[in-house]
């Protein structure tokens, strides 16, 4: 029983980690809490849904294209909303407010156009087979989720560590002015970071949509609660922290639902968030830059 719960928690947690990764990447590099991030999540899920329904695309087509679409949407939204504020170095709070207003407008627009009823992937979109190891059942969807999350995280790590783009991103995260002086094309790097984060958010949307098989415009809003908890627990801008905190939150939620009550599950993230703020504001690994007043 416990091992089954742990597996389910791990699956849920890996989607949280994937989701929070993009969110924390934006903050770590661009110094913005971008609340439109939850919208990319919804976009990824809806594009995949549309592809599956109208064109009969398989998951191997729908997942990458859904993520890609979310990445492109992220680039466009970031360009419209934040270019001007970035140029005037307006700071973190005005940027946060702009994305807050925008995300409300975007959700409302999406809800008005698509409707708010829950939609589902077509039957048989992913096979319902499952494997059993020592009494622990792992469905194909679950394997797909963990596998995709693992691959995407690995690719992101390799990209950040070993490519020229990764170097540019890390330089920008360190210090924008210095990066500019070193001849790094800051604008292009910003676009790349937006795209990558949108990609991660979109993929998380498709995977969560699959996991619960329920898709709805405001799904991103509910997900953001987890996103906030994970990036604060992991430490703002800390990629490794987001990964560990995401998985931790998934496992804790599943265990809470299993052993306490499914209602309490929703509050787990928030409770740990508040505890983190009180006792360890720098996050799990203490790498967040906590600017003290």
């Amino acid at each position, binding site marked *: 029983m416990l091992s089954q719960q742990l597996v389910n928690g791990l699956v849920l947690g890996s989607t949280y980690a994937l989701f929070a990764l993009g969110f924390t990447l934006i903050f770590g590099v661009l110094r913005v*809490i971008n*609340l439109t991030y939850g919208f990319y999540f919804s976009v990824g899920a809806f594009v995949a849904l549309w592809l599956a329904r109208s064109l009969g695309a398989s998951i191997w087509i729908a997942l990458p294209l859904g993520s890609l679409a979310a990445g492109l949407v992220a680039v466009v939204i970031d360009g419209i909303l934040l270019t001007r504020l970035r140029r005037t170095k307006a700071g973190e709070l005005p940027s946060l*407010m702009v994305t807050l207003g925008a995300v409300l407008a975007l959700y409302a627009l999406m809800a*008005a156009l698509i409707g708010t009823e829950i939609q589902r992937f077509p039957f048989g979109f992913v096979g319902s087979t499952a494997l059993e190891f020592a009494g622990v059942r792992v469905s194909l969807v679950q394997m797909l989720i963990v596998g995709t999350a693992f691959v995407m995280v690995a690719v992101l790590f390799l990209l950040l560590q070993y490519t020229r783009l990764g170097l540019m991103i890390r330089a920008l995260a360190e210090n924008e002015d210095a990066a500019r002086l070193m001849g790094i094309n800051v604008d292009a790097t910003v676009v790349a970071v937006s795209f990558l984060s949108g990609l991660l958010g979109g993929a998380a949307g498709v995977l969560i949509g699959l996991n619960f098989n329920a898709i709805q415009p405001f799904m991103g809003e509910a997900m*953001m609660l987890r996103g906030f908890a994970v990036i604060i627990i992991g430490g*703002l801008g800390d990629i490794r922290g987001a990964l560990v905190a995401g998985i931790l939150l998934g496992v804790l939620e599943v265990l809470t639902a299993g052993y306490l009550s499914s209602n309490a599950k*929703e509050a787990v993230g928030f409770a740990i968030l508040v505890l983190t*703020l009180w006792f360890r504001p720098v996050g799990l690994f203490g790498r967040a830059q*906590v600017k003290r007043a």
Partner: protein
Amino acid sequence: MAEWLDDFLFTYENLIHALGIHGLLALSMYCVMALGQLSLGQAAFMGLGAYTGALLTLKLGLPFWLVLPISALVPALVALVIGGPTLRLNGVYLAISTIALGEVLRVLYINAESLTGGALGLSGIPQKASLWLVYGLLAVCIAGFWAIGRSRIGRAMEAMREDEMAAGVMGVNLPLYKLGALIASAMLAGLAGSLAAHSNSFIGPNEYGFEAAVTILSFALLGGIGTPIAPVIGAFVLTALPELLRPLADFRLVFNGLIIVLAVLFLPRGIVPFRLRRAP
């Protein structure tokens, strides 16, 4: 003349109540933004006040004069727990933890069905919030903020908004000011929530979520925060406007969101850009 006024009040009573309550909410937003902080928990604090007030009236039958201060106290305590640790940190921590507060409370109201009525909310709350009370409080609060604004406290607040580090060097006790402002704003929002509950006679869990938080922020952003009256004017405009633009229907929230985007990008001082003089 009096008959005309009666007719007017009767037709638009709900709107007039809403205007006053939204004015109070705008002031609660002003209270934190005036020193350069961003709380997105005003709707959550309002909801706490509304639920506290409604429950005290419905379940315990406490008198209204006792209900109101308790409705302000409960959000103040929550503000202390949430805000306490974030005030020594970068401002985004307060913003994030307060949005998260709103989401988590909504889930709590829905799930604590026996107490809060779950998704159906609470109804049959007696209408005890008279227009006199609402507008009297609004007037007192505006006057209070105005007077405080023209003292060393007001100067310290504006100094923090402009340059927090320099304000600290001037001797302003930054954590104390931030905590004081957050608690005062939570109390105001709680009061407004309780007044709203006792004027609409119904409250539900979805009224105090993300959309409400954004709407309250848009009051202050549209009006501006140069004077305490500015956010109130913002609230009046944004409350009256949708009533006039009813055909907007589903797109009302789109409109509210766009107001924020446009105000931050193109109108950073709001539609009432004057600034309070802070010297005798």
